[in-house]
């Protein structure tokens, strides 16, 4: 028996390793919360170092960028002017949308929207080391009242939701993550669906619509719906850029460009509480409900 085991020890070890790895992969693929919790403990331990590196990186980056800008100032100026024109036209469009919306919903609803929300500001101190998963760690945790499931926003729109916390840090799953599903709706047609991350490197989102004929058009604004489990209704997610038919033409999917620039995510706000049944103030992209 001993001789058999010794003779076949290498294949046995290989088979055992493959079994353990497969088990680990399949278990962690299903039980995500616990794996994230341990990861969060690790990131908490190193969070002072992460904060310092992030701070240094910002300072060095700012210095390098200033020198670099000297060489491309003219080009940047031209581009900025073009962008300004674009933003002005977008601002006009948004103003029109808000006005149209407010006419439909009424002034009373807008007053309700402006009720104060309880928010906590936090800085992004690190990102996920795997490029395939889109999570970030923020420097505020359960000691600041943050709990898993809370929505995270910036003035431009939805960032994601808290998935794990420690006393001094929290892990936030961005809406770009392939596992994030956000209940959403098209503001113009009121078509509902789920918005999720498309690909690890893409900053585009997929809007899977529930209805067969949803009447979604490019340019439509997409916001969180009242059916969303984690997010308050009416938070701006992004703008529809393309609509495609999938599944032998039976279902429709829209590509949404997020309103948030995830490459420049530095300070975010965690929604601790909000008056139920009301939307976020319009400055945070809300006001649709």
């Amino acid at each position, binding site marked *: 028996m001993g001789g058999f085991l010794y003779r076949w020890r290498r294949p046995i070890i290989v088979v055992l390793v493959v079994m353990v*790895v*497969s088990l*680990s*992969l*399949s*278990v*962690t*693929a299903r039980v*995500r919360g616990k*794996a*994230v*919790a*341990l*990861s*969060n403990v*690790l*990131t908490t331990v*190193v969070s002072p*170092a*992460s*904060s310092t*590196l*992030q701070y*240094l*990186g*910002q300072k060095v*980056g700012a210095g390098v960028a200033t020198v670099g800008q000297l060489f491309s100032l003219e080009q940047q100026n031209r581009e900025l002017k073009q962008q300004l024109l674009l933003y002005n036209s977008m601002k006009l469009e948004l103003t029109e949308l808000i006005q149209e919306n407010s006419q439909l919903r009424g002034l009373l609803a807008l007053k309700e929207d402006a009720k104060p929300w309880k928010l906590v500001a936090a800085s992004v*101190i*690190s*990102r*996920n*080391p*795997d*490029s*395939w*998963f*889109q*999570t970030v*760690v923020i420097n505020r945790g359960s000691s600041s009242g943050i709990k898993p499931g809370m929505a995270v926003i910036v003035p431009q729109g939805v960032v994601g939701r808290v998935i*794990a916390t420690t006393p001094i840090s929290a*892990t936030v799953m961005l809406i*770009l993550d*392939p596992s994030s599903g956000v209940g959403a709706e098209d503001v113009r047609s009121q078509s509902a669906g789920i918005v999720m991350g*498309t*690909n*690890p*490197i*893409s*900053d585009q989102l997929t809007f899977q619509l529930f209805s067969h004929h949803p009447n979604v058009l490019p340019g439509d604004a997409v916001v969180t719906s009242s059916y969303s489990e984690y997010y308050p209704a009416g938070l701006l997610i992004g703008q529809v850029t393309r609509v495609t038919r999938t599944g032998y033409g039976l279902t429709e999917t829209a590509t949404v460009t997020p309103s948030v620039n*995830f*490459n420049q995510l530095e300070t975010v706000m965690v929604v601790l509480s909000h008056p139920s049944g009301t939307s976020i103030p319009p400055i945070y992209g809300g006001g649709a409900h």
Partner: protein
Amino acid sequence: MWQFRIISWLILDLLALLIQTALLPQIFPVGYVPDLILPLTVIIALYETPRRGLLAGLVGGLMQDVWAGRLWGLNAVTYALLGYAVAHLESKIVRDNVFVPGLVAGLAQLLVTPFQWVILRIFGFPFSWSSFVAPLPVWLLFSMLVTPAIGGLLRFKPRHEVENPYGRTRMTTWR
């Protein structure tokens, strides 16, 4: 010599992950942030036996998996196999300090990306191939440049040179 100790690998992996999660995302856009564990595994394995190369990859990959908190085993398996393969390859090639680490790291990056794509697909993350390989040129260039740089910075040496620093001189004298 410190370069052959597991505790040194752990510290280097920790530093690499800190830079990868806090510093590199400020330079590279979302999804394009390169991996520092790969160059580190390559450079460690180039001076190790296959078994210890496997261990070095396993340590780095497992740390990355725990840090990421998603699929435990994805990077551990990838880098353990990579460490083993690089250390095995090292015994069959002539090693220099710049071109070989760079080329091996580039080759490793070319193999690691499709391997991880397959594992991710098996475990429920069906990313499209075209978008998955989009950052590959950036990562390829990064690993090819950074790996020799790390080797130079850490002043890694072959084990026989460390353990018997005067071996070559004596041999020349004897001849």
